[in-house]
């Protein structure tokens, strides 16, 4: 078997490890020997650059990028809070047994309340008119008309 060495195998050899077969191959394969030398040269260059060379200073992010990132972060937080609030509201409704309320249900309930109020107000008006007419005739309407009044009223 005479396959050339992979990057990992070459690096293992550089680190003083690797198998005897790999080491033997390295000594007999000109291509792998060249790649090995290149690896060693690259690492030496990186080492000298980092250890002895000047260090570049960090440049701050542009203020535009900072603003965009901050705005995105705030929007994400607002969205998360909104979703959380919505979920919490749903949970409260579910606890009250009205979790299945839809807009239609709300509408029906609202109009039903209005109709009941109307009916009540009509009924009150009729009663008031009757009382007024009776008073004009010099009578008083029997309080029996009031369903809550005493049934024995004359």
């Amino acid at each position, binding site marked *: 078997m005479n396959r050339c060495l992979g990057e990992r195998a070459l690096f293992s050899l550089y680190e003083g490890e690797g198998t005897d077969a790999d080491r033997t191959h390295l000594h007999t394969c000109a291509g792998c020997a060249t790649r090995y030398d*290149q690896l060693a040269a690259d690492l030496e260059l990186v080492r000298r650059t980092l250890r002895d060379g000047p*260090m570049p200073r960090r440049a701050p992010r542009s203020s535009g990028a900072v603003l965009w990132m901050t705005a995105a972060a705030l929007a994400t937080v607002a969205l998360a809070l909104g979703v959380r609030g919505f979920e919490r509201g749903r949970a409260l409704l579910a606890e009250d047994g009205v979790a299945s309320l839809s807009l239609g249900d709300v509408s029906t309930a609202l109009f039903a309340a209005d109709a009941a109020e109307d009916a009540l107000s009509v009924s009150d008006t009729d009663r008031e008119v009757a009382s007024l007419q009776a008073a004009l005739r010099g009578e008083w309407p029997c309080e029996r008309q009031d369903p809550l009044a005493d049934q024995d009223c004359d």
Partner: protein
Amino acid sequence: MSAALERRTLYEELDRAHRPRIARLCRLLLADPDEADDVTQDVMLKLLQACETEVRQIAWAPWLTRVAVNACRDRRRGAWWRRWRLDHVELAEDEIAGAGPSPEERVLGQEEWRLLWQTFRRLPARQREVFVLRHVEGCSTQDVSEALGLNPGSVKRHLFRAVHRLRGALGDRS
């Protein structure tokens, strides 16, 4: 010689012998010269305290390496906002710390040099630590694993990944 004087002498010898190495280690791990100076000072202060109080025999070189690595980790965690603000590396030529192009810059070319530093700074912290200790400071794999609390297999994996990325920054130079 009194015990206090012996300790003081020990500290001064250790400071003289190790401060440059610790300063370089902190500069590379933090990739920020200003923060590195602060952390180096903190590490040396811990060394002074240890010299005054420690009664056991200590291998000071690996002890200092561990303390420096941990101090740099703490600093990275603590100043995340500052690091995030400064993490956008735009290495303008006039922002190079130091005067004039180094031999490495002349060999690499300004753009490659810039790319190499950028890649180095963007390495994951663990890969950066392993690479610096193994290939810049010249520690053995065993020493690196002890300093970082990793097993040797993990050290080798992180090291290989770091080398792969850094070589990628150099491009095809053959």
